[in-house]
């Protein structure tokens, strides 16, 4: 440790001295000589091939410093020497041209788009690199691609399906969709598998505060060599977000608007009122009841036991009066609107982008919403010839009303599926129905009432500020200094009324307020040296980084309110205050990093990086970690021997990379010995007791991830087809793991670095331009991902997440349980009895043939992650008209359909899936569904992990269909518009699957280890939106 420290100090000091030395050497003045001879004026318009005007195009007179840029209308005017000259016309994304002026006074030019995406610049950690020379696996998504889904309210939603190797599951139907991002699989058990986000250089920034409208590009660093520059935080991949900046020479106003209408995507097949009545009739008619010879009519039938609401709910013949579709009653047409106004431009030394946006998204569950207002400004200023400042500020607030998601309590979501359909939402007298209104049913409130009377308002205000100074110390050396800060103030307010049975009636109302505050600052300083020596090109960076983070939260709660008037606003009105709680957390980082990129003649590329990360989170004996990486690339197509092939194969590159990165999401204070306080009781009063909490582990540290990647990039037919293929092998080791200890130690275990998980996979990305004529263009983006995980070492332990198992030698996300063979037949009564079962009870496979049902009978029954995933986006454009079709598919995944399974209990006291009427009867024995019976009859126990509950959920989804029309700019110039685009989108348009639940892309529990557990799923909307984008 001491050595580490010395090493670091030396490095810092040498960097510091280097700075000073170089700073001294910089000349104190710097002048640019302006040309003087000005004789005539040239004007013109720069357009695209399609005739669309191009603002911001650079015009330079060759051999001089004379230059200008085109205005918003694409026009320019430039004075050139009398003798004429050559205009160099260039713009990013277009092929530069040199046009001799000759005697002309008007020079109009149509620029040809540079179809070779190879010229693209990729933002990587601490700098950018030319796409052609990159040696690591980095994928880029442009801001406009994220905006293809106009109702995406966070970046992750917009990224879904866009990048090979990046699995994004939209795990909820609530506004925002609760997306889970997994880059190249899950490699951790107890730490997060979410990638690290870097926003404009701020490491560890929160991506949910960035409005998709202000995103310039997103670069995803997938392999370890790309992410190793982020050291102990890069193991899950890094998502680098760059926000929009103003462009010098332009001035633009753009106003984007959308209004959308969301409806329930699909309904699951539940029993209707007649079906539910029939289900209960059959329950009471269970053939093996205590006294089978005496008729036992269900309560709703003539002769059945009386109950207060009987006449309100049923006709005298037992037929139901009401037939309520609770899925429809609990959801609504959700109307949302989003507006975003951007001012962007720049003059001489200044450039600016400013954006304000407002979103009001309704959820399809009654009363759910998410609102956000956000402001963003980004200012670039060439303060001095040697100093450029880029400053940005993003601030805003959002608020939503949540629907309770706890799958194991009586929530509205649960009751939406379970509420009996012969109950009305309200009786004619206005009172809400309750499920217990039917005798024997599980007593709980109806979902409409729960949605109307439980408030859970969650929101926050946030800000992210960033200042980047780039000091040009010489032509070859820059010093970059970044100071960034983030703050968040969040709140979570909850109130459930005094009358809600099963929720808050016992407490006579329940109000809770949580406030949290978090802040962090970061400072990074690095030197960037870049130079070309003939055919050699070299870039080296090196720097230091500091990060400081603190957060705290406070929870207060009260019960027993005399009235619902106060809601969550006045805790002091509750007569039963609950124990408050508060938590302070914090961590600090100090790092040193460096990277080198070398390229010879654009043919051979080498890259290497090294980071030393120190963190307060790491144990005293392991404060600093080293994270190296290496990569190499070979642009085969730039070799001479390739000249003849270049007509067909325009680009061929091979690259390999290797790196070691870490996952430091081990939590704060986990390495220390801790005591626990808890309330106990003496004298009938609460007393605080202290017990031993956790053992110290000074050796505890980051998880480590080692990854090897080999990639092939292939461009065909002059860039008409670009194919990227990557193979990777990633082994995460030293997992943060609760190592079991013999409990005679007094502890069940201690956090330690144990275990290995491997992820291997293949990623294919293909971009093609299938047809490109003057008027018509068809392009396709396709990606394919296959990832295979395997637990290599788990200290010999076996873990059992919901319906699942994690053990050595097996993949993650495996479902594991009893295999249902069907039901016991009447002629199998004796065999059934040996298992303690009756005919009509569930029959499970006795895998180990020992004559009893035991834990060893369980087998693998599915996997929650897909065998492969493929996405395809086709874009057709004809003149101003453009059609986009975004298809998503996942194959070979299963879901634990626990919703249906719980509702198909043999003695169910709630509504069920329609298929339950296929249950066993003496005359219908060939079925998987046990005989229906009441809770007082001999039970047929159910298993959470049952093969009957795990369903194949492969699917194909038309995720997004968008039609846009760009009005011919020529028609617009009279009304001072530069651009007008109208569009209509249908998101989540169609879904093809055999899955019986709402949606196969879902989990009710943790997305990391329990993906695909469906327990009362939050339904997803299908959204129709109309969009109007105007540019001035």
């Amino acid at each position, binding site marked *: 440790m001491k050595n580490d*420290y010395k090493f*670091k100090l030396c490095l810092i*000091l040498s960097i*510091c001295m280097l*700075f*000073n030395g170089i*700073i001294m050497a910089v000349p104190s003045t710097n002048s640019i000589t302006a040309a003087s001879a000005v004789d005539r004026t040239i004007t013109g318009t720069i357009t695209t091939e399609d005739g669309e005007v191009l603002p911001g195009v650079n015009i330079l007179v060759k051999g001089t410093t004379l230059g200008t840029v085109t205005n918003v209308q694409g026009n320019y005017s430039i004075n050139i020497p009398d003798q004429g000259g050559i205009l160099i016309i260039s713009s990013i994304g277009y092929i530069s041209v040199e046009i001799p002026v000759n005697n002309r006074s008007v020079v109009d030019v149509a620029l040809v788009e540079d179809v070779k995406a190879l010229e693209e610049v990729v933002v990587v950690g601490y700098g950018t690199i030319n796409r052609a020379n990159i040696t690591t696996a980095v994928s880029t998504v442009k801001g406009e691609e994220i905006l293809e889904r106009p109702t995406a309210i966070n970046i992750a939603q917009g990224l879904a399906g866009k990048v090979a190797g990046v699995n994004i599951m939209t795990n909820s139907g609530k506004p925002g969709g609760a997306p889970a991002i997994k880059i190249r699989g899950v490699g951790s058990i107890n730490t997060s598998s979410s990638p690290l986000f870097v926003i404009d250089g701020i490491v560890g920034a929160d991506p949910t505060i960035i409005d998709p409208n202000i995103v310039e590009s997103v670069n995803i660093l997938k392999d370890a060599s790309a992410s190793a520059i982020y050291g102990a935080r890069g193991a899950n991949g890094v998502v680098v977000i760059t926000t929009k900046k103003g462009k010098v020479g332009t001035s633009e106003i753009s106003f984007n608007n959308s209004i959308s209408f969301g409806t329930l995507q699909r309904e699951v097949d539940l029993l209707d009122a007649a079906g539910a009545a029939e289900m209960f009739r059959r329950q009471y008619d269970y053939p093996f009841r205590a006294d089978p010879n005496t008729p036992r009519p269900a309560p709703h039938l003539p002769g059945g036991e009386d109950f207060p609401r009987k006449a309100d709910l049923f006709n005298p013949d037992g037929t139901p009066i009401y037939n309520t579709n609770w899925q429809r009653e609990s959801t609504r047409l959700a109307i949302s609107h989003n507006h975003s106004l951007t001012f962007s431009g720049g003059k001489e030394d200044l450039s600016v982008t400013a954006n304000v946006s407002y979103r009001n998204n309704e959820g399809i569950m009654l009363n759910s919403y998410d609102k956000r207002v956000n402001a963003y400004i980004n200012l670039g200023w060439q303060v001095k010839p040697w100093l450029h400042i880029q400053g940005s500020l993003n601030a805003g607030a959002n608020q939503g009303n949540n629907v309770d998601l706890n799958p*194991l309590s009586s929530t509205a979501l649960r009751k939406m599926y379970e509420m009996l359909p012969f109950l009305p939402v309200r009786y004619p007298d206005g009172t809400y129905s309750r499920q217990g209104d039917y005798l024997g049913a599980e007593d709980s409130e109806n979902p409409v009432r729960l949605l109307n009377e439980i408030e859970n308002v969650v929101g926050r205000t946030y800000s992210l500020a960033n200042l980047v100074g780039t000091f040009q110390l010489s032509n070859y050396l820059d010093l970059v200094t970044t100071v960034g800060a983030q703050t968040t103030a969040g709140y979570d307010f909850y109130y459930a009324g005094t009358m809600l049975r*099963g929720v808050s009636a*016992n407490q*006579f109302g329940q109000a809770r307020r949580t406030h949290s505050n978090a802040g962090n600052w970061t*400072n990074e*300083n690095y030197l960037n040296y870049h130079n070309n020596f003939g055919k050699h090109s070299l870039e080296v960076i090196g720097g*230091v980084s500091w990060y400081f983070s603190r957060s705290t939260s406070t929870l207060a709660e009260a019960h027993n309110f005399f009235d619902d008037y106060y809601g969550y606003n006045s805790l002091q009105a509750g007569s*039963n205050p609950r124990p408050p709680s508060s*938590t*302070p957390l*914090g961590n600090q980082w*100090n790092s040193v990093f460096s990277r080198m990129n070398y390229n010879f003649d654009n043919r051979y590329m080498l890259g290497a990086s090294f980071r030393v990360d*120190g963190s*307060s989170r790491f144990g005293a004996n392991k404060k600093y970690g080293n994270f190296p990486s290496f990569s190499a690339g070979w642009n085969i197509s730039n070799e001479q021997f390739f000249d003849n092939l270049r007509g067909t194969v325009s680009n061929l590159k091979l690259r390999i990379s290797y790196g070691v990165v870490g996952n430091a999401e081990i939590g704060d*204070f986990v390495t*220390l*010995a*801790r*005591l626990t*306080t808890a*309330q*106990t*009781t*003496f*004298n*009938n*009063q*609460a007393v*605080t*007791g*202290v*017990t*031993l909490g956790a053992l*110290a582990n000074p050796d505890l540290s980051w998880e480590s991830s080692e990854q090897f990647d080999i990639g092939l990039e292939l461009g065909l037919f002059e860039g008409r087809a670009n194919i990227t293929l990557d193979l990777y092998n990633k082994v995460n080791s030293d997992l943060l793991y609760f190592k*079991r*200890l*013999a*409990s*005679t*130690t*007094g*502890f*069940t275990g*201690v956090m330690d670095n144990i275990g290995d998980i491997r992820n291997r996979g293949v990623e294919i990305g293909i971009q093609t331009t299938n047809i490109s004529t003057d008027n018509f263009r068809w392009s396709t983006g396709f990606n394919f991902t296959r990832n295979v995980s395997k637990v290599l070492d788990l200290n010999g332990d076996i873990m059992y997440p919901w319906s699942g198992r994690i053990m050595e030698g097996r993949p993650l996300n495996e479902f594991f349980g009893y295999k249902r063979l069907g039901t016991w037949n009447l002629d199998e009564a004796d065999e059934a009895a040996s298992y303690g079962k009756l005919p009509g009870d569930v029959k499970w496979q006795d895998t180990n043939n020992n004559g*009893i*049902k*035991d*834990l060893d009978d369980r087998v693998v029954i599915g996997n929650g992650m897909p065998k492969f995933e493929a996405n395809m986006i086709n874009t057709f454009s004809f003149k101003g008209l453009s059609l986009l079709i975004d298809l998503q598919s996942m194959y070979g995944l299963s879901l634990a359909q626990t919703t249906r399974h719980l509702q198909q209990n043999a003695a169910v006291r709630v509504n069920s899936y329609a298929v339950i009427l296929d249950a066993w009867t003496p005359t219908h024995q060939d079925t998987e569904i046990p005989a229906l019976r009441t*809770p*007082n009859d*001999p*039970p047929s126990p159910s298993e*959470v992990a049952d093969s009957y509950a795990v369903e194949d959920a492969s699917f194909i989804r038309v995720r997004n269909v968008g039609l846009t029309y760009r009005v011919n700019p020529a028609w617009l110039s009279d009304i001072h518009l530069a651009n007008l685009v109208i569009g209509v989108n249908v998101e989540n348009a169609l879904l093809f699957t055999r899955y019986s639940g709402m949606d196969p892309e879902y989990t009710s529990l943790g997305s990391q280890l329990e993906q695909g557990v469906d327990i009362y799923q939050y339904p997803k909307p299908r959204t129709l939106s109309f969009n109007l984008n105007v540019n001035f």
Partner: protein
Amino acid sequence: MKRFIFITGLLALCLTSCEDFLEEEPVGILTTSQFFKTPNQIQTAIDGAYRGLARPFTSVFLGLPISEFLSFTALPGFSTNPFGTGPDEASFVRLDDIDPGNGYLREAFNTVYIPMENINTVIANISETAVIDEAAKNKYLGQMYFLRAYHYFYGVKLFGEIPLKTTPTTSISDVELSKATVEKIYNQIVADLENAETTGLPWRDESGHASLGAVKTLLAKVYLDMAGFPLQKGAEYYQKAYEKAKEVIASGEFILFENYSDLRDPANKNKGEHIFMVQRQSNVANSELHNAVLPPAIPSAGNIFESALLPTIEFYNSYAAGDRRTEEKAFFYTYAPGEVTTYKYWDEEAAVTPPSGANIPIFRYADVLLMCAEAKANVDGGTTSEPAAIDAYFQVRNRAFPNEAKPASITVEEMLKERIWELTFEYLLTWFDLQRTRKTLDVASGEMVDLIGHQATPHLRAFKESDLYLPIPTEQVNLNPKLAEPATN
């Protein structure tokens, strides 16, 4: 040139105090090295050491409560749980060969040693401290000795041979403890309880801390146990048990409640018949027992659990006609025609305003009285006419049958039956009796019969000798292979 001084200064600033920068400041969390320094800290550590008592009654499996309590209470075979929590619990209800991987075994084993570490840590720390006076220190130590004895008693009764550890863990690599013989564990228990007897604890502690009454009750129980299986120390220990129980009776501190419902009355917490209880309170440390033993058919506010502790109808019928314990809402409640549930844990308040704050009884005076009578009957060869013993028994019997005359003599068998009827479904009390006597009540004949070879109503087979102790959990054997070896000393 000057403009760069700013940059240089900034960089220089960044370089100061690197090492301090990465120090953790856990201001919201106590670390061990900061503790046991003041009288208040010691008091909270003492109070914390009692938390282990609640473990069997609070463990939650997927929203289904107190699975450990429900499972072990089913061991004698007098009850069923048709709404059980799954195969782990069903194994106990129907008497499978208990799989060492069974989840409730793991919890039961942890329930011995997790609290033990707290107790040993407190004993080690307060033995040395000078911040409290000797009298206070002794009373604290007395409570801790009692708790250590209590947890080892449950450990040795459930598992037989287990490791014996009376000092705190110093290193996490020091886990390979060997098992100690049953006798050695009993000796430690007796030593701790005898120590506790001398520490100046009051006979009764209405705050809920361990009292001299609790210490002597447990000691009487331990002596009675040592007299029976497996140590079979015989008459000498029956005599010790008899005398110890008589000490508790002679203290005059404890009385039987008049009505069975008084046992459940929250006003009677730690009073009257109650000698030692797990302290609960509805606000912050509530009890799940009220709801968890009720079948779903019984309306009780907040009852969302699908589990129950139902006596078999055969067991219910084994009570003699006119037994007040079978009066409605005494020990039982008929919730549907022919369907009876246990009512011992019914909490009237919780049925209206949950959660339940009822204490959970551990030792009560009726148990002491019956121990006294049984021990004397054993000393006297199976039947006794000793008035003190008959008086003790008759107090309990008279409450159930007010019109029955006092007998002239009593037998061991009568006492064992009375214990089952009186103490049934109180955590492990009945099972521990069955274990030490190897006798059980044949509910069909109403007679005591040999446990081994007897098949109880809900069981799939008869009791075997291997059922007397639970297996050491697989997980613990894997973590400490020495647990697979028999005790050596």
